């Protein structure tokens, strides 16, 4: 049972029980280039599906990270706040952004799975 899902805004979300870990995809980090700054939400705050949860910046571009799911922020990755290059180096691993306690675990299943996302990226050219 794959526990990884993706959005059209190039976020990934990995399910771990009723907690979802969220980050940006390898494609997203390549599009942004060298990441210089990451702004993360406060633990304990709420994020809503499709709404801004974090901000990621390169020297010449800024982009919002939209939360794929709704829930309460359990933890944020302080490591990338101090060393944003980690997002470029390992976007799907050490470069994760935040984890969220899901309001509704079923919301997760509605997102794209990996083959669907790869197809979507290929279509982006």
């Amino acid at each position, binding site marked *: 049972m794959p526990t990884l899902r993706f959005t059209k805004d190039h976020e990934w979300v990995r399910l771990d029980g009723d907690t979802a870990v969220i980050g940006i995809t390898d494609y997203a980090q390549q599009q942004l280039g060298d990441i210089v700054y990451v*702004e993360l939400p406060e633990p304990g705050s709420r994020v809503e599906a499709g709404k801004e949860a974090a901000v990621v910046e390169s020297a*010449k571009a800024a982009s919002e990270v939209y939360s794929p799911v709704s829930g309460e922020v359990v933890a944020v990755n302080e490591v990338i706040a101090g060393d944003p290059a980690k997002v470029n180096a390992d976007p799907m691993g050490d470069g994760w952004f935040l984890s969220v306690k899901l309001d509704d675990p079923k919301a997760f299943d509605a997102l794209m799975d990996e083959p669907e996302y790869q197809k979507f990226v290929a279509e982006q050219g």
Partner: protein
Amino acid sequence: MRYLPLTPADRTEMLVAIGAGSIDDLFADVPPTARRAGLVDLPLAQGEIEVERALSRMAAKNVAAGSVPFFIGGGAYRHHVPAAVDHLIQRGEFLTSYTPYQPEISQGTLQALFEFQTQVALLTGMEVANASMYDGATACAEAVAMAHRITRRAKAVLSGGLHPHYREVCQTYAQFSGLEVQTLDPTPGRIENITIDSDTACVVVQNPDFFGELRDWSALAARCRQQGALLVVAVTEIVSLGAVNPPGEMGADIVAAEGQGIGNALNFGGPYVGLFAAREQHVRQMPGRLAGQTIDADGRRGWVLTLSTREQHIRREKATSNICTNSGLCALAFAIHLALLGETGLRQLARLNHATACNLADRLTAVPGAQLVNDNFFNEFCLRLPIPAAAAVAALAEKGVLGGVAASRFYPERDDLTNLLLVAATETVTKEDIDDYAAALGEVLR
């Protein structure tokens, strides 16, 4: 036309190359009803001689500050600018370059801005400063907006001692942005009561205040911190910081200042140079350009514009401000003048200003009827006269003395301020100027 290099033969040849029958072909996209066949109703081209004559004639109708005993301040100060400053800012490489977007061929402007930012941070006692704003008043309005972004609170409280133009600009900027601006009444000579609550984003005060009074804002800074509000300190006479404890030492979170007094002429009110300094932790919420240090492909030290993602050309509607052009050349003039002054020069300049103002205050308060309102001051103070100050200003001007600004020019509705006169004295004021002023005031008040 001396500024246009194309000759009639060039134009013909170029039209042929383009494949256009006439210049009108190149304006074919303009709707026919909007095309103007003839010239607009304005004078025709003139040579340097004629233009210089016409503009000099207008200039001659004015009374230049330097031609009379001069004591006007109120947010713009007549200081001596060393000759080297104007010479250097007129170098074409500074004067006629653009914003340094191509750092490899703009290191001169970028290094100068980095030095300027450092000077402003040192002078204000703050951690970081930007590459300048339009002027002190707009810097102040931007400070209020920044406090709103940081605290996510809606209310700004403006002290009655804040320059009325700064107050008005803050109100103008805020009117459609959802910010509530609370302005306190000016209370010259008395300490005002400032209330801070959980909706307060910032308190904005000035030092020396609009009436010239120096204030220690440390206790207010502590109260702001306790309540989670920010303290914005405005400084309209930047030379004061050569003698007076800077806002950073008092606990300011943001400093918005007018830098005109260093390096820049009075210019009838502009262009001036807004100084903007803050704490490092808030740097990503700052408006305006920032020069930053980095290295080049060979590892050598150099400078670039940085943290640009805050700005409108990248962030568009989510930018920290809409500012694009700032006051580059005025900032350069400031940097050069302050480099010439240095630590000793600025401190001596400030002492000289204070000493001159002290002597002036002694002489003017010896005139029967004139009373000093201030307990203390730097180079500007407030007199209470037995007659309306506006009438005194006009009568003094008749006698060839530009003696200050009437508070009623800013607060015509406040009867209690009618007789208050703001008087400033810088290093350009001579002993003879003071003699002339005291004598003229004596006659006016007789």
